[in-house]
């Protein structure tokens, strides 16, 4: 496949992976968890490096996933202890992130652990680092991302109705015997693994954008749970294509450009989506007003005429 092809395909797969997680996070009002996890990835990377003194991808992956999971556990602990939900998120991830940056600057300053890169990523480098699977050469990032997408799809389908009921009505879910706590931590693990597998290729910020923005846009269009997944994946794919070509045209960061494109698609959804769209709503209101005005003037005109005649 071409250089361009690999970038777009990897982007689309990351988008799909993140969309699946994102729909669940947005509906469970846990969107900011993705932001938290993508920040604490740094701590995982530097800890893994300091513990093992290696920089190989798999070690990094494990370290980052553990840090992500730890973040969610600490957040949960704080929330259960009565800290405001969003404050718990804010305190936890900033502390972890600060610790990560501190450790890098103190003990790993001379190693190639580029915080900037982790944060902003660069999907442009994806095609250069390749591995060979069954004699086929492919970018390493592509392999990682495909495996994670596969896992996400399997888990989403396997627990489909459990996700649905535990998101919609946790009380009922418990009463029905659905393992709500298990599902929560499964989702948190999936979020960490997805964020970690994706951030290396596209950067932490695009991961957050891909997790939240397409799901939020899809939410505005549809009233069906399964379609929300489909639509969200579709929107993220569209953002990848348009983002890539916009970046190429302007000669700017591809990841950043894709993130901006998710925002553009959200703006379109915000203005035009179904009954909730701002433009549609204003138009409807105008029509209603006009009808009322017509009716009112029709009603008023009769006695008016009588008076004139009389």
């Amino acid at each position, binding site marked *: 496949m071409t250089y361009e092809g690999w970038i777009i395909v990897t982007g689309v797969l990351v988008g799909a992976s993140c969309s699946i997680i994102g729909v669940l996070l947005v*509906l469970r009002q846990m969107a900011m968890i993705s932001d938290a996890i993508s920040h604490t990835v740094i701590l995982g990377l530097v800890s893994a490096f300091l513990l093992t003194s290696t920089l190989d991808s798999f070690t990094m992956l494990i370290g980052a996933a553990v840090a992500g999971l730890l973040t969610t556990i600490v957040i949960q602990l704080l929330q259960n202890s009565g800290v405001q939900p969003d404050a718990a998120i804010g305190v936890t991830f900033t502390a972890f992130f600060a610790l990560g940056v501190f450790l890098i600057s103190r003990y790993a300053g001379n190693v190639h652990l580029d915080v900037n890169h982790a944060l902003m990523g660069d999907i442009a480098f994806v095609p250069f680092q390749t591995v060979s699977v069954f004699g086929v050469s492919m970018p390493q990032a592509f392999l990682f991302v495909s495996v994670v997408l596969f896992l996400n799809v399997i888990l989403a389908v*396997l*627990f*489909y*109705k*459990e996700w*649905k*009921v535990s*998101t*919609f*009505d946790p*009380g*009922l879910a*418990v*009463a*029905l*015997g*659905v393992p709500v706590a298990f599902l929560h931590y499964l989702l948190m693990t999936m979020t960490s693994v997805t964020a970690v597998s994706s951030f290396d290729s596209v950067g932490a910020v695009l991961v957050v954008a891909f997790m939240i923005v397409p799901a939020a846009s899809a*939410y505005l269009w*549809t*009233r*069906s*749970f399964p*379609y*929300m997944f489909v639509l969200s994946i579709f929107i993220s794919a569209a953002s990848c294509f348009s983002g890539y070509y916009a970046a190429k045209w302007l000669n700017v960061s591809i990841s950043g450009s894709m993130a901006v494109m998710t925002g553009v698609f959200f703006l379109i959804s915000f203005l035009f989506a179904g009954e909730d769209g701002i433009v549609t709503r204003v138009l409807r209101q105008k029509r209603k007003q006009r009808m009322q005005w017509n009716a009112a003037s029709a009603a008023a005109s009769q006695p008016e005429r009588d008076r004139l005649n009389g």
Partner: protein
Amino acid sequence: MSDALDVQNITVAYQESTVLENAAFSVPQGKLVGIVGPNGAGKSTLLKAVLDLVPKLHGRAVFFGDELKKVRSSIGYVPQRGEVDWDFPTNALDVVTMGRYGHVGLFRRPRKQDREVAFQSLKELGMEDYAKRQIRQLSGGQQQRVFLARAMAQDASLYIMDEPFAGIDAKTERAIIELMQKWKQQNKTIIVVHHDLQTAREYFDWMILLNKQVVAQGPTEEVFTKEKLQQAYGGQLAFLQSAASEETGGLS
């Protein structure tokens, strides 16, 4: 025949105060039971404790002579309406189908017959025209009917309902109470947390008076006496009584 529910000395505490103290009562099968008491009496907490939704300091609940875990699928819980995300992308029929999840089991999809049961339940409550509606678009009464239909689809032998009559129209209230009476005739047991004393006597044939502790329990005519109500409600009763006498001519 074992009791539908046997509550043994359940105590629940938040922080350093008990909200429920040594609540003990039993409910025979086939009764329509009202749990009645003043605000803060621990009515909702009692239901949640019985269903293991809040931790208990002490005590246990036995269903049909068995543990909760073993009989879970035959217990239908209808939580308060406020505790659900009404913006969730789903329609009425879908919500009712969720009632079948206990029967369907892990990893499996609801089958066609599950959806049929769900639709029949909606129909029973006169909601078949709204099957495809997003739930936010339904009125309070209609939402409550959907919840009732879901409980019905669950085909439980014991129903536990938290304030099903709160914030709904008179017509829906009528429909719900009729449905409950029908369930009772099928020898199902229904336990309802209720806060309206005026209608309580008319609706229920068994009653539990609660104010942190169980003040009285038994057939309605035995429990619904002035002394016992006085004991549960304290000073609030005078007000309730005068309000009641205006409409129904006083308490017995």
